[in-house]
Structure formats: C-alpha cells, structure tokens
C-alpha cells in the first residue's frame, strides 16, 4: 500500500473561486492509496510547504500530489519541498487545477470541481508508480575539437583558447585560412580580407592552447558529450614538420607544375607546395598524385635540395585518437558548379568566370597581380556583366534557398571593377537585391549611385560569343523588354552549397543535416549553434550560407557554448531517461535509429541459456545523452524500453483513472 498525500491549493481565490477545494480534498481521501488529503490557501507559500513537510513526517507519506498551478510554474518548488522532508524529489506529481481548470472554467463550479477531482485522481494514480530517481553525472574532458580551419574554425578556436581550454583544429587542406583567404576585399567596408584574416591565422598558430592539425581529416567519432573519442587521420605530408623551416627551396626547385587549387586553376603550383604564400603552417606538403617520385619513382630533387633534410617519402598516413569534451563543426561550404547552366557557357567561354575566380583575378597576390585581365586574352575588360542567383533560388537547376552573400559580393565586385578600370561599365542582372545587414543597403546604394553600376532586373537567358565579345541576352522585367549587353567578361554569382561530403561527416559525428546537406541546428531560433547531439556545435557556413560577420558571430557563440560545457567538471544528466529491460529486449535496433540523440546503441551481453553462456545484442541507453523524449518507448513493440517517470504503467494508470465513472 502506497501512502499518498494530496494537497489542494486555493491559490488565494485563483483556484478556490471556481473549484471547491475542500470537496476535492475530501473526495480524494477515499481514493485508493491516499493516506492524507487536505486543502490550504497557498500551497507554495512558506506555511504551505511546511504543511506538506509536516504531513510527510507525521503521516509517514511516501509520495505527494499537489493540486495547484501548472507544473511548469512550481514543479521544482514542490520537488525541493518534498526533498527537504526526506522524500526523493521525484516521488511527487502535480495536478494543474489552475491554468487548466479554474482559470478556464470560472463560471461552472460543479464541472470545474469535477474536473479537478479527475485531474487529482490521475495524478495520484501516476504518483503511485513513481520511483525514486537520481541524477547521475559524467566527467568532462577539457579539450575541444574544431573541425575546419576557415574563419569560422579559427575564430571559434581562438575564443575557446582564450577562455583557457585546449583546442585542436583539424583542417583538411595543408593550410588554415579557408575561403576567406581567397577573397580580395570584404563588404561593406572594403577592407582587405587577408589583412584581417592573417593576424587571426597567426594568432591561432601561435596560441599556446591551440594545436593545428592540418592536412588531416576526422575518421571516426565515438563517445558522447564530455567524452568524444575522435580518431583523426593525419595525411602523409612527406615532409617532416619538425625539421622543415619553410624556406621554400624545395618548391622553387620542384620540376612538376600542377594547376593551383587556391587560384582556382588560373595559375600553377608545384608538386611540393604550400597553397598560398601566407599559408599556416608555412610548410609544404607533397602532392603524391603528381609528384614524380611517387608517380614514376624518379626525380627526388626536393629531397636533394632541402637544407634541413626534412623530405621523407616514406611517411605514411597516421591515425591518432584523442578525447574531447566538445566538437565544433566549422567545415564551411563549396561553390555551386555553374556549368549546370549550359546557357551561360561557364567552362566553355574562358571569360565567363565565377565570383571567387573574380576575387583571385582582382587580388594583388593573385595570378594577375591584381590587374583585372580577361583569362582568354589577358586584355583589360571594359564591359563587365554580373549575373546573380546562379544556382540560388532556382528549384529546377540549383537550390531553392537564397545564398545570402551574393547580392553583397556582387555589389562589392561591381564597385571594384569601377574603381580599378575607370572607363569600365558594369551591368548586374538580378532577381532581387537583398541587403539585410548593417551598412549593406548603404553600400548597395553607393554601387548604383556613385559607382554607376547598371542594375537590370531580370534573368539572363543565354550568353553567346561574338568575336572576342560575349553577348549577354536577357530580359529587363521592369521595362518588360529583352536586353542584349555586349560584355568583355561575365561574372557569375554562384550559390553557396554544402561540401560534397558534408552528409557523410554528419553521419560520422552523429547529427542531422537538411536536404541540401547543411547541418541542422538544434532549434532555429533558440539554439542556433547547437546540434541536437549534445556536445556538438556549429559555426559558419556549414549550417547554411552566411557572410563573414555572421560566421564570426556564430563562431563566438559556439565558443561560448563550448566554454560553458568545458568549464563544468561533470555533467548532470536528466533523471527521466529511458532504460532498457535487457532481458526482454530482442535487439531489433529500431529504437537505435529513432533516437534523435544517438543515445541508444546495441551492445553485446552475455546470458546463460540452458547451461550455456551465449552472447546476444541488446539495446543500451546512454543516460548522459538521453533527454527523455520517449520516442523509443513507442517504437519498441515489446515495451522493453521504458521512460522513467513516464512509464507505460504510469500513463495507463492515468488513462484508467480518468475513465472511471
């Protein structure tokens, strides 16, 4: 026999004005398992709580129901109260007879009282199956991993490191810097991208709390918040980092030329190379796909000329496993392949280039030393056409979403053209101009007014080549007539898209992504840098297209979340979690797939069957990860998974209680 105490609150007159609280208390006295029942003016007040504590002690109550306001209001108050009287705080339930009874049925005392009695009976029925629950704790490894070394990753790492925690940055390419290092100027301030990025790169590389692991990829992630075991593949550089001084002799002597990824194929690099002059670490790697030593077994010049003896062709990929408390995904984005739009001739006409190629062409350290020249004949273009939304906002050929940055970088590029080539004309074909950022609209206005860029609202239908000119056929939808523009160069504002392996990486780490491969935040408004996998956070364009200011802001936010997590010595876990009856579990694994937190895994247990020890797989809930949603309990046909505090028996008991005549 359980000994339930029922305490009915008047809430002054808030409840009592339409619920006969004394009657509720009186009726409940006769309900099974109720040992004590009373009503009081303010249950949450000091004397009210004393009343509960006194009754627990004097009546020997082992569980308590308070009929008052919403549990969202005072559940914790009363849990603390019963705990102070020596009960487990989870041996407590609330019946909401204010928000969901007296306040909504003010004029019908009889029915409101009847309803309050039902709600109280439901709570008593549930509390009878309550079991003491304890919070559990898991340790926190005070080290963070940032995946991706672009501006998002760098900023996150610096912020975390400045808060006193060790951070590893894993970067796939030989250098950190990311896309921002390829950009010439940044809008709307037009400051030089390298000038603001390079100091950050240097800070990251020299920070005592930051370790750069470049030319490396995440291979495997196990564990959970506070304790992720991450295996990192350090790709073979063929250069001994401890010996190399970055003097550059090797790459100046290397005979093999390869199109430069950094310059988007518009100039050449060597087979032993650093991606760009300001690369960090400024130590080369050998591109084994092209190096003659690896392809043909000849050459070996770099090894011969290296004064430090740092070249080592025998180095192999190395797998290292490190434990981290938190992971930040800052893997950035890629550019949409504009050749999908055959009508624009990208890839066919050399003078139709992407926005990022434009950045390199106009950059002082780029292939043309900052002189804007046509790739086809090296002539300076006079008429430049920009086409926006190439791949964005186009469900048919591209992506449905808006890439957010293109309006602004196109405006920026238009001004740069006008700035560098005084007698030039620029035309911008657009669908809309979106400038929702500080100083953005002003910048756009300057582009059209001061820099006299011609904005034409309409789509380009095709581009044809006429001699050494490009003929851009489009429509001016504002004037409602076709337009033809003769251009020397066409710049396509290509969409930002997710990395081709973004989904793979998300599955590896264990969080979800949307149909476009962008990583899904835990809540679009209230948890924009969290994923729903505890301990995994997002920064930058891997979550969705964004510009540099937004990326840096998000990086800072992610860093704060990581810092908050790592500053704890242990993590308190939700006591209302799912638990598996492993004896009953058949190990079908349906719950594993349904759990949004990857809290459930199959583990092998040993069992005695007919005198033999056998092994079989059953589900296991990691209570550090489980957040108690209960989706698994419904998918489990054999009811082998139960959600503590909301067990099947408890809910059935409530249903039964309410249906009693």
């Amino acid at each position, binding site marked *: 026999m359980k000994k339930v105490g029922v305490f009915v609150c008047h809430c002054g007159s808030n409840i009592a004005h339409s619920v006969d609280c004394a009657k509720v208390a009186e009726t409940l006295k006769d309900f*099974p398992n109720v040992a004590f029942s009373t009503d009081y003016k303010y249950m949450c007040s000091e004397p009210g709580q004393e009343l509960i504590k006194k009754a627990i002690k004097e009546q020997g109550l082992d569980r308590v129901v308070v009929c008052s306001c919403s549990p969202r209001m005072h559940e914790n108050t009363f849990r603390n109260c019963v705990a102070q009287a020596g009960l487990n705080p989870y041996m407590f339930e609330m019946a909401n007879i204010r928000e969901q009874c007296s306040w909504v049925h003010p004029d019908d005392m009889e029915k409101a009282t009847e309803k309050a009695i039902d709600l109280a009976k439901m709570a008593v029925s549930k509390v009878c199956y309550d079991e003491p629950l304890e919070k559990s704790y898991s340790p926190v490894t005070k080290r963070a991993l940032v995946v991706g070394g672009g501006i998002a990753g760098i900023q996150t790492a610096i912020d975390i490191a400045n808060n006193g925690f060790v951070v590893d940055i894993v970067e796939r390419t030989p250098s950190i810097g990311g896309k921002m290092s390829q950009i010439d100027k940044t809008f709307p301030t037009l400051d030089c991208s390298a000038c603001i990025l390079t100091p950050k790169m240097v800070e990251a590389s020299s920070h005592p709390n930051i370790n750069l692991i470049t030319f490396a990829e995440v291979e495997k992630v196990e564990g959970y918040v506070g304790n992720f075991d991450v295996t990192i593949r350090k790709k073979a550089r063929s250069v001994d980092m401890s010996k190399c001084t970055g003097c550059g002799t090797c790459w100046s002597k290397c005979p093999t030329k390869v199109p430069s990824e950094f310059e988007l194929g518009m100039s050449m690099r060597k087979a032993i190379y650093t991606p760009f002059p300001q690369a960090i670490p400024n130590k080369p790697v050998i591109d084994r796909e092209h190096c003659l030593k690896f392809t043909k077994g000849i050459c070996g010049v770099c090894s011969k000329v290296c004064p430090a003896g740092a070249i080592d062709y025998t180095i192999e990929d190395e797998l290292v496993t490190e434990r981290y408390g938190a992971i930040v995904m800052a893997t950035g984005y890629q550019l949409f392949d504009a050749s999908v739009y055959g009508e624009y001739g990208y890839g066919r006409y050399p003078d139709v280039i992407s926005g990022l190629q434009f950045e390199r062409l106009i950059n002082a350290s780029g292939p043309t030393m900052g002189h804007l020249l046509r790739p086809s004949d090296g002539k300076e273009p006079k008429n430049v056409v920009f086409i926006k939304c190439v791949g964005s906002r186009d469900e048919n050929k591209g992506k449905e979403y808006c890439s957010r940055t293109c309006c602004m970088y196109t405006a920026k590029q238009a001004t740069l053209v006008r700035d560098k080539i005084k007698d030039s004309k620029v035309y911008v074909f657009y669908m809309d101009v979106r400038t929702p950022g500080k100083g953005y609209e002003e910048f756009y206005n300057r582009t059209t007014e001061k820099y006299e860029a011609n904005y034409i609202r309409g789509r380009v239908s095709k581009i044809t080549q006429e001699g050494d000119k490009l003929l851009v056929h489009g429509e001016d939808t504002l004037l409602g007539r076709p337009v033809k523009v003769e251009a020397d160069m066409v710049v396509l504002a290509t969409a930002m898209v997710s990395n081709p392996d973004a989904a793979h990486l998300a599955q590896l780490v264990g969080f979800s992504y949307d149909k476009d491969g962008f990583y899904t935040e835990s809540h679009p408004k209230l948890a924009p840098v969290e994923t729903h996998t505890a301990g995994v956070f997002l920064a930058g364009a891997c979550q969705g297209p964004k510009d540099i200011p937004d990326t840096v802001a998000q990086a800072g936010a992610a860093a704060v979340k990581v810092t908050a997590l790592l500053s704890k010595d242990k993590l308190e876990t939700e006591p209302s979690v799912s638990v598996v009856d492993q*004896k009953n579990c058949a190990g079908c694994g349906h719950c594993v797939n349904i759990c949004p937190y990857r809290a459930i895994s199959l583990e092998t247990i040993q069992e005695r069957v007919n005198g033999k020890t056998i092994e079989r797989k059953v589900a296991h809930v990691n209570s550090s990860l489980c957040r108690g949603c209960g989706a698994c309990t419904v998918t489990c046909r054999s009811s082998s998974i139960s959600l503590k505090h909301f067990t099947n028996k408890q809910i059935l008991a409530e249903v039964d209680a309410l249906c009693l005549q």
Partner: protein
Amino acid sequence: MIVIDKNKLTDLLDALNQSYQVIVPAKSADLTQFMPYDAVKEKNAEIILNENTVLSPKWLFLPQSEGMYAFWAKNKKLEIVDLPSDLEKMRIVFPVRHCDVQGIACLDKVFLDERHVDGQYLEKREKTVVMALMCNNPKDSCFCASMGVDRAHANNTVADVQVYDLGSEYAFEALSDKGQQAVEAIKALGSEKTVAVPEVKEQKIKVNIEGLPEKLSGMFYDSIWDSFMFKCIGCGTCAFICPTCYCFDINNKIRGEEGVKLRTWDSCMFDEYMLMAGGHNPRPGKKERVRNRFLHKLEYFYENYQMMLCTGCGRCLRKCPMNVDIVKFINQANAK
C-alpha cells in the same frame, strides 16, 4: 424411442427453445462452433450437423473467460460478492458427437472430482441437457473409436439423451431424468418406435493405444521429442479447440476500486505458461512443452483417471497450423 423426421428439425429446435436455451453447432462468419439457437436465427447462420465444429462445446461448461467472484474496495473496505448465475434457463445442447461427449466426461473427472467439486462447473453441467448424437458419417480426421469411445453408445455419465441418425430421421432415447424431460418436450413431433442401432462406417484413422501410457512412462528422455517438437510454433490453437484441455489461469479484471476474479483458458504450449515469478521456466523450450502436452493427454491423465485425455475428435489434426499430429506421434511411439 421417439423418432422424428429430419424435415422437422426447425420445429424440433423451436419446440425445445420454448422451455430451454437451445445450443446448436452452427457456422457463422466462417467459423463453426456451438452457439445459441436464438443467435443462429438472428444471424441466419447455418446449422452444421454433419461434421465436427472447429471449436468444441467445452466452453459451455468451462467458458474461455469466466468470472469467479466480484470484489469491491469502496472506501478502502474490501467486499467479495458471488456473481449471479448467467444461466437463467436450462440449456439443451443438440447434437453433441460422442467424441465431444467423451470430452465432457474428461472435464467431469477434473471439475467434479470428489476431492473438490467446482461449483460453477457443476452448475453449468446440471443446468445443461446433453443430447449425444451417434455419428455414422465420420470424417477422415476422426479416430474416436481408437481412443476408446463407444461409437454406438455415448458415455452415459454425460449424455442425457442418445440420438441416432437414421438417415431421414432422428431417434431420441432418454438416458437420464433430465433427458426424459427434454424428450417429452418434443414427443409430439414424432412417434414412438423401436429402432435398431444403425451401422457405422469405419474410421480411416486407426491407432493402437494398448499399453501406450505404460510405454510412454519410460519415454520421457526419448529422442522422439527432439524430432516431434520441431514444427510446433507455440500457439494455443490445439489447446483451445481441444474438447478436453482444461487448463486455466486466474487473474483480475479491475476498474478502479472494483473488479472481478477471472479464470481464463490457458495453454501449456504458451511459453509463459510455466513461467515462475522469479523468471525460471521449468519447461523452457518447445520440446518440453510438446512433451508435456502429449504425455498429459496419453499418460498422466490416464494414470490419474484411467482414461485418455484425447477423444479422437481430430480437431488438432485439421487445425494445428503446422500439423503437429498426435496420431503420427502415437504410431511412432508404438514403433519405438
């Protein structure tokens, strides 16, 4: 004997239905079973006289779910009250084949055992007139003769009326006072005649049970079980359609502060049948369960009551989903 033309079947049933609740074998919603004649009429169901029903008449005396008593914990005080009888009228069940009559005889052994008479069972038996039909048209699954059932004369500890199928007529012979009263009720529909017991067709299936219980008592650890258990899927079909399986489980049906103590059929083929509270199961596998069922039917019951707990009705031969065949088993055991 009273001889009544088969054409007058409806008149006969209607006449009986005046003073009795008549139960007949019938087919409704694609299932043959014993059901009240009133329901047969209401549903326009077909009365089935020439074959064994899928469900046996066992439920008339041992319902699948039966309340034993009601309890009430109002105001925290427990009260227990007997349930009122659900038999308002005397029942008459017509016709019951000799195999099923024998089945009732088996149930009598258990529930009317002198050491303990089950009151609810007794009431149902006393309030029911059993009209046994001597069937001269056996199906290919019938083997009652082999199981010691007298095909000409029904077990007279059970049958109140013996009915003979004369082709176009039925002959009724009262075997008990209850039976006599029932025959009186239909007397007017026919005429008194002396009738010879009709010839019966031989049954195709024959098994030899001579010395079987003794033989089986030495076969508990025999390898026969290893091969015999394979097919069984552990369902309760055999036990639930069987006219003799009588195992039941006792449980509660509770609504808040009131409830009923229920007894419900159970099957030793269910894996939870022998499950102990601590989780131990003395019959953990199919082998142990199949062995128990067959040994109960053919050895243990015989040892206790000197009769087989199988009446050769052939229901399980036809309805076991995977055809676990008791005849085949007996033959194999004999051959060992």
